């Protein structure tokens, strides 16, 4: 917690990237992360991933060290756009990593696009973030794919036919993913028996859960973020709604288990990562270093933030230049790059990545399957 304390206190501080043995000026990469606010777990985990990468290797490209400039976007759209602006205009960064969530990227992306500086969202899965943009990227799959896999998993593997949805309407991510799931689930022959809405930060969802229970579903799909999922699961169980819960990548944070407790036991979700899912050398090295550094299991957001760094460094190397425009051009052509989550290829700004399915058993994430695109 100390780290986040410093961050929120100062708002911005500069991390010395690698040891500056050479006198060459460092290449600055901006970090626009959620260090506080509703999804602080993602930003803080992403930051851990980048620090893990710094421990793993000397981050250097074109003979120049890499320096990170961190700004807390407070999990807020407007703050995210401001953070991007500040990183570009004041710090003159070559590229930006983050925000971690789609809604914030929809605000920050256009700022970077206009300034012609590449920006990459480690985990921004909503398709709209990169659509029609030359400078906005992502290090993860997109929600139409994730929603499709979730619906197929529910229909075919779990054999359920009646789905109920609780959607966080304040998040572009949740609204999009909910729609993609519902579309595929109905196409397969299933039925969406109830769709209820909440918004980020709502504590009480007893009314929604009562309506969902009355619709008698056999699965509850919650394409929201972890805090909302946990609180909703507790109330679902209290109201006697005992059906399995399925969620998206947003479920992946320790808070889900801390807050949800027994209520989230058995929860399944589609996501980016499980330590067992990827076995290339870089992935193994990342897992080992992370465990040593933080004494806990690595997570998706850290790994994807580390991947974002690797994607940018690879692009700088191929471009042979640190001009933001040249970097963006090279990023768009990323192909079969080895990263901590297997290999990555970028098409239309989107990473082509498999979906990993996990289940919470006795408070631990159990690996169920990897589905390739």
């Amino acid at each position, binding site marked *: *917690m100390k780290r*986040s*304390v410093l961050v*929120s*206190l100062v708002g911005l501080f500069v991390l010395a990237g690698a040891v500056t043995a050479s006198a060459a000026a460092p290449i600055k990469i901006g970090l626009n992360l959620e*260090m*506080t*606010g509703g999804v*602080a*777990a993602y930003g*803080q985990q992403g930051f851990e991933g980048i620090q893990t990468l710094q421990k793993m290797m000397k981050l250097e490209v074109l003979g120049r060290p890499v320096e990170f400039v961190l700004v807390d976007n*407070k*999990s807020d759209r407007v703050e995210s756009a401001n953070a991007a602006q500040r990183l570009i205009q004041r710090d003159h960064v070559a590229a930006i990593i983050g925000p971690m969530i789609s809604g914030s990227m929809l605000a920050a992306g256009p700022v970077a696009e206009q300034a012609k500086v590449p920006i990459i969202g480690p985990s921004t899965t909503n398709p709209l973030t990169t659509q029609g943009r030359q400078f906005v990227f992502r290090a993860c799959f997109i929600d139409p794919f994730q929603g499709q896999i979730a619906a197929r998993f529910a229909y075919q593997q779990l054999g359920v036919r009646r789905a109920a949805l609780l959607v966080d*309407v*304040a998040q572009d991510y949740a609204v999009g993913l909910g729609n993609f799931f519902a579309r595929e689930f109905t196409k397969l022959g299933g039925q969406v028996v109830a*769709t*209820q*809405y*909440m*918004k980020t*930060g*709502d*504590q*009480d969802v*007893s*009314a*929604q859960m*009562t*309506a969902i229970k*009355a619709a008698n579903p056999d699965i509850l799909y919650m394409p929201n973020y972890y*805090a909302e999922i*946990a*609180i909703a699961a*507790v109330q679902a*169980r*209290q*109201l*006697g709604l005992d059906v399995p819960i399925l969620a998206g990548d947003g479920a992946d944070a320790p*808070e889900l*288990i*801390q*807050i*949800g*407790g027994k209520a989230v036991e058995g929860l399944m979700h589609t996501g980016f990562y499980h330590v067992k899912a990827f076995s290339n050398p870089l992935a193994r090295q990342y897992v080992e270093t992370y465990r040593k550094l933080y004494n806990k299991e690595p997570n998706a957001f850290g790994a994807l933030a580390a991947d974002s760094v690797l994607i940018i460094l690879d692009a700088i190397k191929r471009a042979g230049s640190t001009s933001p425009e040249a970097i963006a051009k090279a990023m768009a052509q990323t192909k079969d790059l080895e990263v901590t989550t297997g290999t990555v290829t970028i098409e239309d700004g989107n990473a082509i990545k498999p979906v990993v399915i996990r289940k919470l058993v006795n408070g631990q994430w159990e690996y169920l399957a990897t589905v390739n695109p």
Partner: protein
Amino acid sequence: MNVDVLVQQLLNGISLGGLYSLLAVGYTMVYGILRLINFAHGDIFMVGAYVAFFLVGIYHLPWWIAAPGAALATALLGVTIDRAAYRPLRNEPRISVLITAVGVSFLIENLGLVIVGGRPKGMPVPDLMGRAYSLGSFRVAGVSLWVPALTLLLVGGLLVLVYRTRMGMAMRALSRDIEATRLMGVDVDRVISYTFAVGSILAAAGGIMWSFKFPQVNPLMGIYPGWKAFTAAVVGGIGNIVGAMIGGFIIGIVEIMTVGLMPQLSGYRDAFVFAILIFFLLVRPSGLLGEPLKEKV
């Protein structure tokens, strides 16, 4: 919507409303005596929940120590806030104190962010509170049964304090006329400190019960419940304790019914509550049970 669902929704509304009542009573008490809307009340609520969380979750103390511990900590906080922020402005226009209260609220929230960080923590909930009880086909969380009982107990205690003790007499005198009370030889600052201490204890009780129902704590958790409780206090007639209780239940039921009857508008549930606030301020500023304010000359 069939009858069963409607009854369950009503129960949900009462459960939520009970928590608002508990908070609104603290709000209204401080206002009733000092004519000050203590906007930091919701944040004291948050501190109460956090202290309980630390004592139980980190130091593994039993609840019968943790809850009074949290109450003591918030009482000290309430008195400190009054000393540092409100007392220097005692003779200034009321608006200055009001603005200061907003400032104190922001200060506590952001100090919270700095000290404990922005990530929510899971609250350990005693089984008695966390388990669900079935009433026929209806279900109610244990905490929802305890909240009204606790509220009645605290309100009872409060009424005894205000109407049966010397301190209460001083409080009532103060609420009429501070200067005259001072001239009668009452230590006004002491009475005000006492009022803040009691109000803060009520906030801590609310914070702990809230985090039993929604088992998490975070530094900004007091903001919305605080505003809702303020609305409840206004609806009931600010300054009136029984009114605050009734207002709390009204707000809770309205919120749940908004979602239950109009699921598409769930995202606007807070807007509905604050529309009620505006309605009351425009049409009946003295609330359901309040007396019209007499202008002091």
